[in-house]
């Protein structure tokens, strides 16, 4: 009897899992169908086309200059990730290792900025960047993104460094290392796992950013993929297959990285979430 019950239970689990998968795939299925159809084809979005039509992809690529946007995304993401990791880990080390009163206040101050949503300071931030002549420049975008992702990075690194035994520092000190050597030769190599998480979290955030790009990148030549596509979308609202093809293309880079580094994505984000 219990055996039968267990079997039914198992079967139900499988059916639920299948149902969940189907529901979660529906929007992507619709997107693919739409991207493969001609503009004149008004058949149901649930039916795949019975012809092969790939012109949407080439057309959206040339019309919205996706190649340039991809390059911009790449430049901004690489620079931001490199800068935020460097500045973040430098700040986290003393904050984790020397919890003096002053350092603790600095830590609290940095972490409090986690809750400041970028948009609450939109108006003054925008004015500041205008005054600095930073609108539509890579450097302003990179600096602003770095600043707003920095609290997360400091938080993750501080949490991790605190778990590294102090005895390691002390042993290195006795062996004649100075503070900088301790950091670069002893601590930094131990930070690989958390660095992988940090890189992935920040990379996702920067690559997919829309709110900062919308205000800071106004010239076409420096715009990133999310921005270019959203403009394309409002421009060609009556040509949805084209917009669908663009959306689909935009997912490919991150999807590829995700497929190859899936383990790090999931552990990275879970860690980021569990630790804060």
């Amino acid at each position: 009897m219990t055996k039968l019950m267990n079997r039914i239970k198992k079967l139900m689990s499988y059916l639920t899992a299948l149902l969940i998968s189907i529901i979660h795939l529906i929007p992507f299925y619709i997107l693919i169908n739409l991207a493969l159809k001609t503009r004149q084809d008004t058949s149901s979005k649930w039916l795949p086309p019975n012809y092969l039509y790939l012109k949407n992809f080439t057309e959206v690529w040339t019309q919205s200059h996706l190649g340039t946007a991809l390059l911009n995304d790449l430049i901004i993401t690489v620079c931001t990730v490199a800068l935020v990791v460097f500045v973040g880990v430098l700040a986290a080390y003393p904050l984790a290792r020397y919890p003096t009163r002053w350092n603790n206040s600095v830590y609290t101050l940095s972490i409090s900025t986690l809750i400041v949503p970028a948009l609450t300071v939109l108006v003054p931030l925008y004015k500041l960047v205008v005054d600095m002549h930073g609108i539509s420049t890579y450097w302003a975008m990179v600096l602003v993104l770095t600043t707003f992702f920095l609290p997360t990075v400091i938080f993750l690194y501080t949490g991790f460094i605190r778990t590294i035994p102090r005895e390691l520092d002390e042993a290195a000190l006795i062996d004649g290392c100075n503070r900088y050597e301790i950091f670069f030769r002893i601590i930094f190599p131990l930070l690989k796992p958390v660095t992988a998480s940090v890189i992935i979290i920040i990379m996702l955030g920067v690559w997919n950013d829309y709110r900062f790009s919308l205000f800071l990148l106004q010239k076409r030549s420096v715009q990133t993929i999310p921005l270019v596509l959203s403009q394309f979308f409002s421009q060609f609202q009556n040509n949805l297959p084209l917009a669908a093809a663009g959306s689909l293309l935009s997912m490919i880079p991150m999807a590829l990285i995700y497929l190859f580094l899936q383990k790090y994505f999931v552990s990275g984000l879970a860690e980021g979430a569990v630790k804060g």
Partner: protein
Amino acid sequence: MYLPALLLFTVFIYYPITQGVKISFTNWNGYSPHYSYVGLENYRYMFTDMRTYKVIINTLIYGLGSTLFQNILGLAYAMLLNAKLRGRGIVRTIVYFPVIVAPIIMGYVWYFVFQYDGGALNDIMLALGKEPVDWLGNGPRAVWLITLVNTFQYMGVAMVVYLAGLQAIPKEYLEAAEVDGASGFYKFFHITLPLLMPAITISIVLNIIEGLKLFDVIISMTNGGPGYASHSLSTMMSDLFFAGQDAGFAAALGNLMFVIISLFGISSLKFLRRKEVDL
């Protein structure tokens, strides 16, 4: 060594916060070099304008609604996919995938489902012989649909956090309870749930802070419409600033948002701190 970090915070966060207060007392339009101080006029207008209250309520629905859905569904999915099922890895991958998509694009993808003219949902209505519905044309409904889309996109994170939490629960506890004849419900409410509490706290806190900031999905699905019915504080502010050319009012709204999110944020930081003590 934290000097560069402090410098960045000062220039791009602390200084703008003080400037934001200053601008909110002016009638600056966002680009003109001329403006004058109007005192508390922007705040008076903000609190007498009915739109403000509507937008605050929307923001709370986006923040708290997504949090509720994401965590209930995330926990349910985690429980299901923690059991030994063939292919559970694939299901996890599918549920998690939207996390890597840009939220602005995710909104467009769902727009293809909900749009009035030729949307996938209306294709079903037509096939069933019913009238097509303008799903996003009704304010309150649009707000809930946006909340669901945000839930869809980020529930994978909650699921992963809960999976990690579930795997940390010692099997002996559940087995001992089973030997004592405990029911599934009893085990869930008296063992699993209490032991998951740290993971639940963190997940909820993060979801609330993120949800209250919701911006991209709203832009791509409704752009705040119909009218201003689905605006959040962030989209409303950006609209006032760039389309409305009312930087003073936008700054005042930004300060209001700052206060609201800080209230939630500070209470959540207290949770985080308490958790650090536990560790």
